[in-house]
């Protein structure tokens, strides 16, 4: 067993994502005949995501963060460039095979329909279902329930299994969605604003669960966040976007820098060290803060 482990450690694993010359725009009725690149939502991005990394994608509103996640799950397809998922061309993979490798947690889910938590988590087993005439309605097998139950235990929602999803708090819902994504048994987790509208305690829950999953299952995690501090604390590398382009990608210590951030966001920010971890921490200056260039930083 140890031999196998050492062998796999020596092999350099294929990167989770290899993105080359990626450009994308939403088709609209206006013509794009001119050389105007401003219509492009993603413009010539290149980066690599290694297996087992936690990557935080940050950038101002409309910089293309959500579109990037959609491209990486093939929810939309690029006009130019290539994406490789564990070495295979994403464009050539089927919806189903992608869904067995990548779990995607979007922001805009509807909780109107009275599904129970267990219903919701079991939906994550859809890519692994076995159909056929004898199972027209697609009931889950015992194994699916075992996976769902373990996922619910990991995100601490097992006691909510029979509750209606609409009756849960925002934090509980987010944990249910994490359980659903876990039940999908993916290799990559993609989350769009997983901590938006959550209070501190629930933000911490979500981040802890992501860390657990990452540590235990060697999961690759990509998360879009507006919370730069959170990204700084939990991500191995931060990818900064502006107007559809890649500004820089690297560890928080290098990327979360006042010059980078003020250039990207167009406002002055203060960066200092987190009292606990020493990782960069971002604050907005007070209104009467005029010393533009004076920034306390350890870097």
């Amino acid at each position, binding site marked *: 067993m140890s031999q196998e482990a050492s062998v796999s450690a020596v092999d350099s694993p294929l990167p989770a994502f290899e993105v080359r010359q990626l450009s994308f725009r939403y088709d609209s009725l206006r013509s794009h005949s001119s050389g105007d690149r401003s219509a492009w939502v993603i413009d010539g991005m290149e980066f690599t995501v290694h297996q087992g990394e936690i990557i935080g994608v940050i950038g101002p509103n409309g910089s293309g963060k959500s579109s990037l996640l959609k491209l990486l799950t093939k929810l939309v397809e690029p006009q130019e460039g290539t994406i490789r998922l564990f070495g295979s061309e994403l464009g050539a993979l089927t919806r189903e095979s992608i869904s067995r490798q990548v779990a995607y947690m979007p922001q*805009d889910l509807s909780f109107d329909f009275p*599904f129970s938590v267990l219903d919701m988590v079991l*939906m994550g087993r859809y890519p692994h279902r076995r159909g056929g005439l004898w199972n027209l309605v697609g009931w889950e097998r015992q194994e699916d329930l075992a996976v769902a139950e373990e996922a619910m235990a990991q995100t601490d929602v097992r006691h909510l299994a029979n509750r209606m999803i609409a*009756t849960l708090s925002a934090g509980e819902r987010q944990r249910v969605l994490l359980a659903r994504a876990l039940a999908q048994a993916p290799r990559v987790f993609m989350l769009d604003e997983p901590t938006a509208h959550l209070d501190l305690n629930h933000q911490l829950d979500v981040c802890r669960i992501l860390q657990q999953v*990452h540590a235990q299952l060697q999961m690759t995690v990509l998360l879009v966040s507006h919370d730069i501090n959170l990204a700084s604390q939990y991500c191995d590398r931060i990818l900064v976007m502006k107007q559809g382009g890649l500004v820089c990608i690297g560890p928080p210590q290098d990327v979360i820098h006042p010059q980078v951030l003020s250039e990207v966001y167009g406002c002055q920010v203060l960066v200092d060290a987190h009292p606990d971890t020493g990782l960069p921490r971002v604050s907005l200056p007070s209104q009467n803060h005029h010393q533009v260039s004076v920034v306390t930083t350890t870097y």
Partner: protein
Amino acid sequence: MIVHPTPSQTTLSDPPTMAAPVPSRTYKDVAAVQALRARRWYVVMGVMLLLTCGAMVGCLQFGAHRLTMAEIWSALTFSSAGMDDVASVIIWDIRFPRILMGLFVGASLAITGAALQALVRNPLADPYVLGISSGAALGATIGLALGLGAIVGGFGLPLFAFIGGGLSIVLVYGIAASQGQLPMHQLLLAGVIVNAVCSALMMFATSILNPASLYRVVLWLMGTLSAPSIPMLIGIGVCLLIAIALLLRESQALNLLAVGEDAARSLGVDSVRVQRTVFLVSAVLTGAVVSVSGMIGFVGMVIPHLVRILCGADHRLLLPVSALGGGILLMVADTVARTVVAPAEIPVGVITALIGGPFFIYLLMTRKYRFFA
């Protein structure tokens, strides 16, 4: 600048301790849960089937002439002295076809409503939201206006209605589909537009109809289940069975789509195919049902909500239970419609609204139903 991560880099505090991988008792729990889920499906379906049969037998009793259970039993078992006795004739020639028609039409409307509410993620959707019914109504009105209502051995009206419905399916689909996609908001809009245009044209057509034809159009629009012919029954029955099979096959995909389209696609749902299938199946079934029974309101919108309140939103259960529930409601409503003022009849749509409405309000007020939360 690019650094390969090490786990220690990411930890903020002590990493939380993980639960041991699946304790042994979990297996038993899982088996129990699975048995419960499967059993629940069979129990609910069994109860609904029993209720359906009970409602059928109950409805056989009532009408202009009240029959006893003994008469019904002997007619159903063919044990009466002669097959031409009054009870047998009433049951086999008049009531049974009509009850069956009520079952099929109610089931079609309810299952279509349930599927469409999930598809367009709108609790107010019903089978008529797609504009197919207005197209069918326009077709029927034109047929009557041209004096062709009685051709083809009494099939003229349904035939014209079905052609009108079919044309509006093509129209709605043509307006909504773009670049190989079928965006749902566009589908709803197309339905509303086709509805409006067809209604306007129909009002114009009725304004130039003679009074006799006008009366037939108005009666047809109110919806009636009277005197179905055997071929019609078989036609609707076959359409319904095929539709149930096709919709059940997509029921888990509908669950996922009801929560969110992008999320559903990321879980491997071919959303365009599912949307196209559900739209076409619903549209054709609605067209067929409206052609033979006119516009019977309420069943298609409220039955799915009732079933969701009682059984939850899982479409694998919701769709078949809605179908049976809609069938029962329409059978009972039609029996009331042809009994209370016998030998005259009340339009069945009036009864469905009067029975279903208060019941729905009662459930809304007594149970926690969070659809409009």
